[in-house]
């Protein structure tokens, strides 16, 4: 999606709906980057995202996710685990994404019992405790990437 059509920091929906289908990417499904270090959980999440009608890309840690983000400009949502090896955990990744790519929406999930998790997240961040229900994640994806 063209970055200029993006509203930032408004706390409202991310992408201007009016831009959808306005260009040649009309047919392209929105892209979701899934970041998860457990391979089977990553496969399951990729399935979930694909099944919900998105194009899914996987990254096994935050550093890989950043590299992917640096090389693509079509990612709409980052869906990340919290506890991961590497230089950043999911919370730090969420903030890095918000700072460097403000339009991208962020969903964070964790099996850890995080106190005040909402305060840890960047603006517009969405949190799901693990285990999440696929339906609720799918519906959040649709809402965020609409």
């Amino acid at each position, binding site marked *: 999606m063209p970055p200029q059509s993006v509203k930032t920091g408004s706390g409202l929906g991310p992408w201007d709906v009016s831009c959808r289908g306005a260009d040649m990417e009309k047919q392209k499904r929105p892209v979701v980057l899934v970041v998860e270090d*457990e*391979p*089977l*959980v990553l*496969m*399951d*999440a990729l*399935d979930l995202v694909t*099944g919900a009608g998105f194009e899914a890309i996987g990254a096994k840690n935050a550093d890989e996710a950043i590299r992917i983000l640096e090389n693509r400009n079509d990612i709409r949502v980052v869906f990340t685990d919290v*506890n991961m090896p590497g230089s950043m955990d999911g919370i730090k990744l969420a903030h890095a994404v918000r700072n460097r790519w403000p339009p991208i929406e962020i969903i964070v999930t964790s*099996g*850890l*019992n995080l106190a005040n998790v909402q305060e840890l997240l960047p603006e517009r961040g969405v949190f799901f405790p*693990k*285990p999440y229900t696929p339906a609720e994640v799918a519906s959040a994806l649709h809402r965020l990437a609409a």
Partner: protein
Amino acid sequence: MMTYREETLENADRGMTSTNLSSVSNFDAALTADVAAISRIDAVASILEIVCRTTGMGFAAVARVTKERWVACAVRDEIAFGLLPGGELDVKTTICDEIRDNGRAVIIDHVAQDEHFRDHHTPRLYGLQSYISMPIILPDGAFFGTLCAIDPRPARLNRPEVIGMFKNFAQLIAFHLDAQARAAKQDAALLDAQEAAKLREQFVAILAHDLRNPLASIDAGVNVILRRKPDEKTRSIGEQIQKSTRRMVVLIDDILDFARGRLGGGFMLERNPNAPLLDHLEQVIGELRDLSENPIEARINLAHPVNCDPKRVAQIASNLVANAMKHGASGRPIRVRASTDEKGFELTVVNEGDPIDEIVAQQLFRPFFRGNGRSANQGLGLGLYIASEIAHAHGGKIEVASSKEETRFTLHIPAA
């Protein structure tokens, strides 16, 4: 005991081996600690000063005396006797050795006129004429050492006020030593408690994360397989794997609750004076109804707000209903009632299964209690324990009443 003779101060074979670092470094750690303990008692310096002033004697000390060692812990030396704190005398050359054996004070006003000590080796060795040594006995009866004083001149020591003073000072020193030891023990206990708390946190973290993560992986992997439309056999195996992993998750959750509750000093509740309890109760009962072979009749009437942690109270309800499903009479209904009044909240879960033996009923709420059943699906025996702990955390309780007609569990939470 130590003694004084000016001309022999440098003479080491008098048994005085003290005051150099090499001998200090030979101390047992315990002796070093004892010297340090005395040095930490501020009153000791004053005590020694008062002792010298009142008796007119030139040297006073607090000594640690063991079977093998005589170590000066604190010293007041006005006559250049030459012994410093940490310095040692050969214990066999001292009278303190004898005091250690019999626990009695030794008091000599004038050695030359003393029948017993006139020819004793100690006064002769150290050239002393007056001598007093009072045992320091710790409250537990152990002999620590002596409070003692010496002088090359005679002194009037055998008077009640002098003896009483020494006795009182010796007791005071013993009291301080004991207080120090107890404070040290409390510090150690506190460190132990902190250590235990840290271990518990690690234990909880291991349960919460390290054990659950692989299960989540297994579950996710099976999800991926099942989504790929496998043949019937594979699908059935996949579903069995998921059932097992989910059972394991429930067990881990129970142990986690146990660790947080029993080991962590009680459940942390997220109490809310207007808790949405109804929603939570309906949800857990709804979930269980789908799995139950017995009809579940629920009547929930929450007219008053309930100040509680709704998730935890729903956890109790879930546990009691699941128990009723396990032990209820086949096909007979399970009746769930939840109600409130000014006094609080009450939940009853009733089944018509076999009555619970009186003795078993008394043990139901103990951790890891599993009765006589040996079903493959049996849990860890933590469910009712956790439920009752959650009730306690709310200031409430769970009771059981069992008869031929029905078995009834009642949770009561008083209005806060």
